[in-house]
């Protein structure tokens, strides 16, 4: 049973103030009116909804996915991929190599299925945004209150020591043996026991996703959250956006119904793929012509390292440390245990060799490298669906190989006996000498297996309407009543996990909207 204020498709006729009208060609049209309609309930949408609802505005949140509570989460990966992920977690940016990416689609969005890393935007990135992109009121000092507010709601903090698994301590030991700077992760968690199920919904309620933080706060202040609502178009009169329309997806596969939500302000928080798709699908053209352009995605690669000892990587938190030694070079590393079914999908083996490797799952550490990209891709809307393209540059390919080689050095220093690479046709590594050979190998892009969960920058904010889609607070240039509050706003990649940055920008966006709606500061 859903908490009060969360409505599924079957609840629509009972939603307060809903109007039901027959449609001309059959079926029914549901209509609602509110001050602000927020599309998406993840790290952007939930924050905006809570801040605005607390400010006294009538807020409706539309979420395409369903509502699942803590007690619904377990280690059933197949079930979780279907329930919590868009397209079963198998989306792709086309290019050479293609980049596989995943997004959440459930109440709470990607905060339900992310690793829970809570990092402030690096100061050099903040300054770049202000200096190169003209983002107003954007300095470390000016953003500090927003960071602190977000961290407070998320209970951001370090892991309890007993929750840190052997895979993470091995990575740390290896990095420290080589003299590399390693830092403990700050995560949005409260006494996380380290069940390592972050990516499939936290079954203990320790991870403080928006499902447990901002959305309950939004509900407390009167917001309504409507699930299974797919928004098809923005309603507008010329350049005045007046609401959204869409269909009520029936999870059981039944007949879909139409809805319209009329609002004084529409906030789009669908993520950096779906947000530009919705804007483009609705026929919006901004002066810059850059909706959908500027896509960055922090390309990730992973290696599977086999140790002699029983690592039991599933015991302990998803990520406890990050190797930050090479942050200025644009990459960082972490141990990221994933279930055997996911590991199996990415191993370059089949048959007996695959079985033998999986048989050693207990002894494996999965390590990942995150690259701060130097190029950008694009999201187009084709027949209403997003088509994402991204071409990794030669420079980034070199950094992927370099970063992977350094990660292998770290894992060998920690005692790894064998490392399986994400590069097709490149043999497994068994020694540091093999790592040196890897460095000297030219690896074509087509042989790389690249993944990501950080999609950014397709409706970038900035001070110049001819270069940016949104202004410094997320309002879409040359349209009224329309804002964006998600990772689409990033003018550049940030080089670290983006959740806190998204939430911080969403907080700014909400504060700005409250000012525009003339809500007194004392009422917030």
């Amino acid at each position, binding site marked *: 049973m859903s908490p009060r204020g969360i409505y599924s498709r079957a609840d629509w006729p009972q939603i307060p103030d809903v109007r039901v009208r027959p449609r001309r060609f059959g079926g029914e049209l549901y209509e609602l009116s509110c001050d602000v309609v927020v599309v998406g309930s993840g790290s952007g949408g939930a924050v905006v909804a809570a801040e605005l609802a607390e400010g006294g505005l009538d807020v409706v949140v539309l979420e395409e996915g369903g509502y699942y509570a803590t007690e619904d989460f377990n280690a059933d990966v197949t079930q979780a991929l279907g329930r919590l992920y868009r397209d079963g977690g198998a989306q792709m940016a086309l290019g050479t190599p293609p980049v596989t990416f995943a997004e959440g689609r459930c109440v709470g969005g990607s905060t339900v299925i992310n690793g829970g890393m809570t990092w402030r935007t690096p100061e050099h990135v903040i300054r770049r945004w202000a200096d190169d992109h003209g983002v107003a009121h954007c300095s470390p000092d000016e953003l500090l209150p927003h960071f602190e507010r977000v961290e407070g709601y998320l209970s951001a903090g370090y892991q309890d020591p007993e929750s840190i698994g052997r895979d993470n301590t091995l990575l740390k030991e290896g990095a420290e043996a080589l003299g590399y700077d390693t830092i403990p992760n700050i995560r949005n968690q409260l006494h996380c026991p380290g069940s390592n199920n972050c990516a499939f919904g936290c079954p203990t309620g320790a991870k403080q996703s928006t499902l447990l933080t901002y959305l309950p706060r939004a509900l407390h202040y009167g917001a309504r959250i409507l699930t299974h609502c797919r928004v098809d178009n923005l309603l507008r009169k*010329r*350049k005045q956006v007046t609401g959204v329309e869409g269909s009520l997806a029936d999870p059981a596969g039944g007949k879909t119904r139409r809805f319209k939500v009329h609002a004084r302000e529409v906030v789009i928080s669908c993520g950096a793929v779906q947000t530009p798709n919705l804007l483009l699908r609705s026929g919006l053209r901004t002066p810059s012509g850059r909706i959908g352009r500027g896509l960055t995605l922090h390309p990730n690669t992973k290696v599977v390292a086999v140790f002699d000892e029983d690592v039991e990587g599933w015991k302990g938190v998803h990520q406890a440390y990050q190797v930050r030694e090479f942050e200025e070079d644009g990459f960082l590393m972490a141990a990221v245990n994933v279930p055997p079914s996911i590991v199996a999908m990415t191993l370059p083996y089949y048959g007996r060799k695959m079985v033998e490797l999986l048989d050693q799952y207990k002894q494996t550490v999965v390590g990942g490298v995150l690259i701060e990209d130097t190029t950008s891709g694009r999201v187009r809307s084709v027949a209403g669906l997003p088509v994402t393209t991204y071409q990794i540059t030669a420079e980034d390919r070199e950094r992927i190989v370099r970063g992977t080689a350094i990660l292998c050095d770290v894992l060998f220093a920690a005692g790894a006996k064998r490392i399986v690479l994400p590069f097709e046709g490149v043999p497994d590594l068994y020694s540091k000498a093999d790592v040196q050979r890897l460095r000297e190998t030219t690896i074509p892009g087509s042989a790389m297996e690249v993944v990501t969960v950080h999609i950014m920058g397709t409706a970038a904010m900035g001070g*110049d*309407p001819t270069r940016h889609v949104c202004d410094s607070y997320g309002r879409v*240039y*040359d349209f*009224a009543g329309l804002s964006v509050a998600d990772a689409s706003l990033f003018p550049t990649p940030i080089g670290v996990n983006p959740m806190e940055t998204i939430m911080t920008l969403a907080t700014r966006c909400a504060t700005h909207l409250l000012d525009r709606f003339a809500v007194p500061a004392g009422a917030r």
Partner: protein
Amino acid sequence: MTVQQLSAPTNDARASERYLQLGESSKAELEAIFRRGTQPDFAALSGWEYRGRNVAWWAKRSPILKFIKGFYTDGQGQGWGYNIPVKQNGLDAPWICKPSDEDPKRFGFYTVGPVDPASRDNVHLASLLLDYGRGKNPMFDASKVLRDYLVRIDPDSDDLLLGKAYLALGPKRVASNFFLLERHRPTAWVRG
């Protein structure tokens, strides 16, 4: 400075160097400035006349290369504006009203206000709309088809403004030309 404190109109000021240079900009350069421009503060325009110049290939030999635009607020708080014909004596010479600085002809009236995003005249939201169609001009006055959009060139100053003129031809809006305005002289004139 209030309108009541102003001295009688004078006309010693000439166009600034920057104003003249901007007038030599290409259409693409002016378009970029216009798109980046921000909405002027009408309170800072009201009670002032601005020297204006059209920027277009046809303007240099036309009788409307130079002109003056004035702004005022009526008793109901509605923003208004008007045009004054000036002597076409070259851009480096003073702007001299016709028939005289003391008693100029005022014509081509327009309302001034923010752009309504839901209206047909919504080309550039971050601007002030000078709507000649609502200016209570004579029935067959050709100026009634004009819709001008006005933006600041410098984000914090209302002294130098860039305008873009459109022609309202039925439901269509056809871009005509850019024009520049520079603060010229105060005025207490209000349409009777």
